[in-house]
């Protein structure tokens, strides 16, 4: 059952990425290019997505449980530390180089373009490298 609901959530999420135009890197780069020919779509996408998701978070946060009554632990909302800032900076630079972030990156694998596979392969290598590094030197 968990498998089915997660699959459905993924399909709806993926359809949203596709319909919103966020799987076209030129739209994303156009949003980031505030000093050029600015494309506002990404702001509309994020605004709509956050507005729809927020009530679900409010519900779960108040009850401490999801709609099935299972206890849910939500992530820390306050802690600001250097890994957060450093990581967000590195991610932002990488995102700005291609206009692709992990969600659209996965969707773009459907094009069977070698570049999409190189991108996602590099994402996985980067994630694995950091995991190994953290295991070797905890904290």
């Amino acid at each position: 059952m968990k498998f089915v609901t997660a699959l459905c959530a993924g399909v709806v999420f993926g359809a949203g990425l596709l319909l919103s135009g966020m799987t076209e890197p030129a739209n994303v780069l156009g949003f980031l290019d505030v000093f050029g020919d600015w494309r506002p779509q990404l702001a509309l996408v994020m605004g709509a997505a956050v507005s729809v998701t927020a009530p679900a978070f409010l519900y779960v946060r108040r009850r401490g449980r999801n709609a099935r009554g299972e206890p849910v632990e939500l992530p820390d909302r306050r802690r600001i530390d250097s890994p957060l800032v450093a990581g967000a900076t590195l991610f932002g630079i990488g995102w700005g180089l291609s206009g692709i972030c992990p969600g659209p990156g996965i969707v773009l694998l459907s094009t069977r373009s070698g570049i999409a596979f190189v991108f996602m392969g590099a994402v996985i290598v980067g994630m694995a490298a950091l995991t190994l590094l953290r295991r070797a030197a905890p904290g």
Partner: protein
Amino acid sequence: MRLLQSGIRSWPLTWQEPARVTCGAHGHPAVIYAALNARLPSVTTADAWHALAGGALIGVGSATLLLLNGRIAGVSGILGNVIRAAPGEQGWRIAFLLGLIVPAMIFGAGSPLLPVDWRWAAASGLLVGIGTQLGSGCTSGHGVCGLANLSVRSLLATLVFMGAAVVTVLVVRHLVVT
């Protein structure tokens, strides 16, 4: 320059067709910058409605995963946990990630303007992989779910990665290419 831009726009920017042109008066090889240099025609009302409707669907997907699975729909977090074989069930994670690609397999993803040079894509991917794990989230985890959870932490992360991406595009598009 205008001619060059329209030429770049009409290219089929795929990895099979390496585009070798020089760009601007400085003669930079545009081969790795072509995707960044591509300009789409201006935004239409239909684009705006698609953005809103698509965004709402992303929200429905995120809300579904939270309400029915009790999980955060952060793509980099889910992918990272699959890679490091994190404790807990892997089934739902793999199901969610597979689900993402299903609509594109059915309807196609069009012909997106991807980077032309694989080294460019690899550098971008590495930074995205390392950055999202170090910073505990990407556009979906911090930008959608975190903001929806009214998280100060995610708001800061979103502002930082957007800022870094804006500066990167500024440098590559306006300071290096032209």
